[in-house]
């Protein structure tokens, strides 16, 4: 069984008498009005029992030969004892498969983060303007942002629905900033060439 439910404010254990009450009750520690909805899963054993030893007629665990196999990995089919069986959602997997799937990130269920290329491109376009670096390196930043838009358009794979409008905005902004930077440089050069005395030349 799990330790119990905790107060969201002080993170101390709440008394079982406070579970599933219709109204708020004061936390015994911080006195904050708290309500807790507790579900049957709290009564489940959290630590697996010690794996049983196998006899000669029984299959053994792939990782612990002396332990009796109790499950089969849903991914690779290895026999697993109770210690090596990891329940991941509805599947029972071995530690190797979980490690491999998380590294590969091929299945959505095993991905725990994603890179937001559209946000990177937008930041590359906004930060130089705010930091006044745009005057010197504007073309480089906008070219870099455009490259990230092109790469990220195909590579960005968020788990949840995400619109592509940020990519469109970033592509448009990078073109505007790039053309703007070229126009700015051309204007400065033209001004210097047409009025060299004003610039001390």
């Amino acid at each position, binding site marked *: 069984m799990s330790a119990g439910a905790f*107060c969201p404010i002080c993170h101390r254990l709440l008394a079982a008498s406070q579970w599933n009450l219709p109204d708020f009750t004061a936390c015994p520690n911080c006195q904050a009005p708290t309500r807790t909805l507790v*579900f049957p899963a709290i009564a489940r054993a959290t630590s697996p029992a010690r794996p049983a030893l196998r006899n000669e007629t029984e299959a053994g665990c792939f990782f612990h030969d002396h332990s009796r196999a109790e499950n089969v990995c849903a991914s690779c089919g290895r026999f697993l004892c109770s210690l090596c069986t990891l329940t991941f959602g509805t599947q029972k997997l071995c530690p190797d498969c979980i490690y491999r799937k998380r590294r590969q990130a091929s299945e959505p269920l095993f991905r725990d983060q994603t*890179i937001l290329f559209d946000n990177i491109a937008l930041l590359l376009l906004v930060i130089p303007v705010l930091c006044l670096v745009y005057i010197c390196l504007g073309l480089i930043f906008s070219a870099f942002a455009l490259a990230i838009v092109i790469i990220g358009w195909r590579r960005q794979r968020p788990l*949840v*629905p995400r619109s592509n409008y940020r990519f469109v905005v970033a592509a448009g902004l990078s073109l505007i900033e790039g053309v703007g930077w070229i126009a700015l440089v051309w204007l400065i050069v033209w001004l210097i060439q047409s009025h060299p005395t004003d610039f001390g030349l």
Partner: protein
Amino acid sequence: MSGPAFAKPETRQAQYRKIAATGWISRLLPGARSTIYLGEDHLLHAKQIMLFEKYRRFYFSDIEAISFSKSNRWIWLSVVWGFLLFCSLFWYLGHQTWCYVVGALFCLVFGSLLLSNLIAGRTYVVNIQTAAQIRRLRPVERENQLIKFQQTVVPIIMQAQQANTSEAAV
């Protein structure tokens, strides 16, 4: 070659339905924006940290408790927006047209923030607990959102865990 193991990544994309999200002000603050999605057998908490989006899954069969405490954050927010609204009125001491326009704009901004804060209702601190983790659910910390969240999620959790219990009994 048509088995699930050979399916294209697009076809294996999990289906999620958004059920709650933090307010639009959180879009301006890095790391403050988070959203809760309802999946087939789990809740997905997506937290956006500028260049990344981090995901936490809470399987319905594993959720042990949802705890929530009343917090005073909404009162403090109302005080802040109310004070800024009051300060905006000083623009009207300028006795010039552009001062009136700027004052009206500030009043509109802070007045609507105050109003939306009051309409959204009181605030809570909400935690979801499984055997492995306890996480704060910021998207459902307003009263209306919390009620809707409970109405959506609690029956699904109960159903999932009752199904598990009956399977174990068989």
